[in-house]
């Protein structure tokens, strides 16, 4: 005899939300009520600013003025929409591509450049940003976010924690272990899966046989949703809803977006993907559609566009100048290993100075 005992437990539906379509039209029934025009303009500015910072770092890397860099091109709506939904006291835990999240949360821009020029000093994220530094090992940041969320619940702060992970990251053990903990302990955690379709050269369909990444939440008892990740309104709304619910349960939000550029400056995407695919996604560009929306509502014009670009270019040039003025202090490498300096480190440092190992 074969019977279905699980029909009540397993409901195979994953909802997909889009509010702003590719042509700039809005689904008014879903439009977030708290999103006023000034906030929408702010979103547009952040998305443009992030794209400009990205372009700057890319060119700096090509000139040898920055280290290997992971561009966010194409993923601005996912990052800006979710970050702007955060309340002042919420925390975020990024992976390594969430440059726009730092921007929205107020990381001093020169810190961003100092980090990507290869200095730990850029990882000293100021407390008021309420975010952790970049995490490079894929997926390993998820348990950290779980621990932060546990601390919020234990201390009854009311804060939620947003953690960002890519499509590739959802294949890591730490992703599963982390969301499983969050489900068991009902933590105030919002998992943003920034599904940009590619994990270096591996396409989304080769990452998992699961139809959606969001459905991984079902296995651990967490509510999940898919949203158009190039639709800043949908990402904003889904994140806002998840944060509001976070006092009683975690949520997974899979944002469907596209990595328009390379994984990092160390690879060439033309080797592993078709131009036609990239072209198709270009038509879904997150900034273009928001621009169409703003123009259609007369909230924006070419003059505003030009002065925004000028301002942003100037801010970037200022930050780059400050970052390039930054002088590393090799002693800091020895001073920040432990809360104290053990004999062996003192000895290694003193010898380096005495023998002039670093004179070059």
């Amino acid at each position: 005899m074969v019977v279905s005992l699980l029909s009540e437990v397993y409901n195979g539906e994953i909802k997909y939300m889009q509010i702003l379509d590719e042509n700039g039209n809005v689904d008014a029934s879903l439009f977030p009520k708290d999103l006023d025009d000034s906030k929408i303009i702010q979103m547009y500015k952040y998305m443009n600013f992030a794209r400009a910072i990205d372009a700057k770092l890319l060119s700096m890397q090509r000139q040898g003025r920055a280290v290997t860099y992971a561009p966010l091109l194409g993923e601005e709506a996912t990052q800006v929409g979710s970050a702007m939904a955060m309340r002042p006291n919420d925390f975020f835990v990024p992976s390594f591509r969430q440059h726009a999240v730092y921007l929205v949360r107020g990381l001093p821009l020169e810190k961003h450049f100092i980090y990507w020029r290869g200095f730990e000093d850029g990882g000293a994220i100021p407390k008021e940003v309420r975010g952790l530094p970049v995490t490079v090992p894929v997926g390993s940041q998820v348990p950290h976010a779980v621990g932060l969320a546990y601390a919020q619940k234990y201390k009854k702060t009311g804060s939620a924690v947003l953690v960002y992970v890519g499509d590739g990251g959802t294949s890591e053990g730490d992703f599963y272990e982390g969301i499983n903990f969050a489900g068991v302990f009902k933590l105030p955690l919002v998992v943003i899966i920034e599904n940009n379709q590619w994990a270096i050269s591996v396409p989304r369909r080769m990452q998992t046989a699961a139809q959606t990444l969001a459905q991984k939440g079902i296995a651990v008892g967490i509510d999940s949703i898919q949203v158009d990740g190039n639709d800043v309104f949908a990402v904003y709304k889904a994140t806002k809803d998840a944060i509001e619910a976070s006092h009683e349960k975690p949520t997974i939000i899979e944002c469907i977006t596209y990595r328009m550029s390379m994984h990092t400056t160390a690879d060439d995407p033309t080797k592993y993907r078709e131009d036609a695919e990239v072209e198709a996604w270009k038509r879904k560009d997150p900034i273009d559609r928001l621009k169409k929306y703003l123009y259609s509502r007369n909230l924006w014009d070419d003059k505003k566009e030009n002065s925004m670009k000028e301002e942003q270019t100037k801010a970037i040039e200022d930050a780059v100048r400050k970052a390039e003025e930054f002088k590393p202090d090799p002693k800091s490498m020895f001073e920040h290993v432990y809360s104290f300096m053990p004999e062996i480190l003192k000895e290694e440092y003193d010898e380096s100075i005495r023998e002039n190992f670093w004179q070059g």
Partner: protein
Amino acid sequence: MNMVGAINNALELLMKENENVILLGEDIGKDGGVFRVTDGLLDKFGPERVIDTPLAESAILGTSIGMALAGLHPIPEIQFAGFMYEGFAQLINHAARYRSRTRSAFQVPMTVRTPVSGGVRTLEHHAESPEAFYSHIGGLIVVEPSNPYDAKGLLIKAVHMNDPVLFLEPTKLYRLFKQEVPEDMYEVEIGKAKVIREGKELTIITYGTMVKVVQNVVERKGTDAEIIDIVTINPLDESKIIESVKKTGRVIIVHEAEHSFGVGAEIAARIAEKAIYSLDAPILRVTSHSFPYPFPGYEQYYIPNEIKVEKAIDKIMSM
């Protein structure tokens, strides 16, 4: 008190002292831990502070890192050191370097407890001595007590620090012997070795399960040996070792862990760098063999015993 009682007592005092101290691990709550080290703490402090977690070592350590970054002081327990490899990346990639990679803007105050070493006929993977792996990594502190008094004081000191500390508990010593242990809070210094017997002819450097073995041989033979229990493996108390070696001119290093590329090799290298001209004989190591820990039926052929220590003493004293 035996070592289990001493650690349990330390945990209770620490949890009473600071409500940010949180325990988490597999079976540590209702079951009180597989060795009963956390027995009774769930009833005293409740399930928010004594957390029975799902079976996931990487998440136990990763979650602890997140808690520590948020200002708590987690004390995760990994049920056996052989299962900690599942969470190795969290310790190496994150716990060890959060401070340095953020220039102290963030720190990871956490104390990871785990049972180590063998001699109690456990199944596979339950008798590992992995201290060298973790000691290789700057940013982590690695301690291993050899008696109940040190276990309590070291654990208290570890939790009073703002660093990630790996607290290795030799399974064999959990209930092997009892000692007078004060009921109150006290600290045993981290980074300081202990000269547990003074001597002039030979220095024997050891820690963990081997301390008792060495003591037994030296007492029985009446060798004029200085015995140093290093207590903290990393950072090593090098000056105490060098001072003793300069006095005696002979060194034997004794540990239970595998022979090759172990803690003994590091200690020998430091002595070679700093005191080679004080040596009257080559440095000897008494260790297990250069292969993974065997099944319980073979462990008596693997762990260094008193005979092996005695032969090494005879050999070095004849050179």
